[in-house]
């Protein structure tokens, strides 16, 4: 019960802190003091107090999309393994629902961008769709590999890597790299996207939400931060020991999430944004990592799969 309550509490706080840590690291790397760590939270509060301006060419899709994207992403997070790998909501096959909820959120965000009738937003939606086509198979492939090895389709058991030999090490390493790359991609971070860019031609996620304002914009920005937290949770589930005590997990889990944010900030400070044409190549690396994990599951477990 306590673990579930902590999961919900962390869901409300840590995504904002992660965004704040990334901004602070980038500022420090640039020789500036940077905004407070909770600045993204204050920005969200400010946006929630504002009214929304809606274009007359948009339909009901544009109106419901932000709330739906946030609801789907938050529900997906409740299914993910949290403190001590305890899920807030758990049942057999919950990983399938989680992945489909993320897909649903992505679908509504894309058609919401197309609904505005803006050529720029259509361009952003097209790019986002292309990147999703590359990224989502890797996620499904890696999750499928874990499901085959563990014999379960529930998130809690799926990420409990037990046994000896090369397989747990391969799964933990490839999975951590894979989820970190997905965190950067789905969180709209450099080197895939730049959340601070003001040049429409180079935008991906930001150009899709150009027409959103007020609470709608706050919902979409919070949903992007939630996705980053989701992948940080999956990394934590892979790397933390299986027998970690609940109170230790409650302390270590936020630290792992903030460490992921710190690393993302360092990457953003050191690496230039890729050209759009190079992003699919970079993202294909996630598929390669998932395939390596699958091959390791087949060969290093003596054909147990």
């Amino acid at each position, binding site marked *: 019960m306590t673990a579930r309550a902590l999961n919900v509490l962390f869901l409300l706080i840590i995504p904002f802190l992660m965004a704040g840590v990334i901004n602070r690291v980038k500022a420090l790397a640039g020789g500036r003091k940077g905004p407070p760590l909770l600045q993204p939270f204050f920005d969200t509060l400010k946006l929630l107090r504002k009214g929304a301006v809606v274009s007359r060419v948009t339909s009901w899709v544009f109106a419901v999309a932000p709330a739906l994207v946030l609801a789907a992403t938050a529900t997906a997070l409740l299914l993910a393994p949290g403190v001590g790998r305890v899920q807030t909501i758990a049942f057999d096959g919950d990983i399938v629902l989680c992945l489909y909820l993320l897909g649903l959120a992505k679908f509504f965000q894309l058609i919401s961008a197309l609904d505005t009738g803006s050529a720029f937003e259509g361009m952003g939606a097209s790019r986002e769709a292309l990147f999703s086509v590359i990224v989502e198979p890797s996620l499904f492939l890696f999750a499928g590999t874990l499901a085959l090895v563990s014999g379960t389709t529930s998130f809690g058991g799926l990420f409990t890597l037990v046994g000896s030999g090369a397989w747990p*090490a391969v799964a933990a390493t490839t999975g951590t790299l894979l989820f970190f790359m997905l965190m950067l991609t789905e969180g709209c971070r450099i080197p895939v996207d730049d959340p601070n860019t003001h040049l429409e031609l180079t935008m991906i996620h930001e150009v899709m939400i150009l027409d959103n304002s007020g609470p709608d914009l706050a919902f979409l920005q919070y949903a992007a931060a939630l996705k980053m937290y989701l992948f940080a949770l999956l990394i934590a589930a892979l790397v933390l020991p299986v027998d970690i005590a609940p109170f230790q997990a409650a302390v270590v889990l936020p630290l792992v999430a903030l460490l992921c944010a710190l690393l993302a900030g360092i990457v953003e400070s050191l690496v230039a944004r890729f050209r759009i044409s190079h992003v699919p190549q*970079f993202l294909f*690396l996630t598929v390669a990592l998932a*395939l*390596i994990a699958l*091959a390791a599951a087949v060969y*290093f477990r003596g054909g147990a799969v």
Partner: protein
Amino acid sequence: MSQILTILFGVGILYLALTSRMRTYIQVIALQGFILFLLIARDFGKLDWFTFFFLSFETLAFKTIIVPAVLWRIVERTHVARETDPHIPQFGSVVIGTAVFLAGFAVTDWVSRIDPSVDALPFGIAVSTLIIAFFIILSRKKLITQVMGYMLMQNAVSLLMIAMAVELPLLVNLGVLLDIFTLLFLFLLFLGKLHSTYEETSREKLTSLRDQP
């Protein structure tokens, strides 16, 4: 921990298959050298002190620091920032690299069934890295990239030796060291001279070489 380091060693060369920046190549070569050093440091106590000192010095000083530093200097001097037009595009290289990794694991499975004493993961990663490095040499046009591919092969051979046996014959170690020395001489003489004649150090430019009339 050593298994995680070994996987990072392999992922490094997979990343190289998709990148075109020379400095990234050098950084990965240095990272692989450091990983080799850590893998040898793990065997502290299992090796005699001379072999341990020799291998540690070779991997840390040469593979991690000196060779990358020389490569860095050459890249700056020749102004070759990236491999712009490889024979096979970067995307194709990653696909082929991934296929090589999968095949490498299959070979490892086969070898480890024949000889269970072989450490399967380093062996598989080393074989895959060796083939991908060879592929990089074949698919890239710049001379400097091809030499870097050779360095990657050297790193793969070192990992392979670690996978095959803990106690490495001294002769093999000296051979590796000789390779490094030869490489440095080749770099300093050959690339320096070549750059003074040609602006580009591309292999294709060599086809225009002919005797003076």
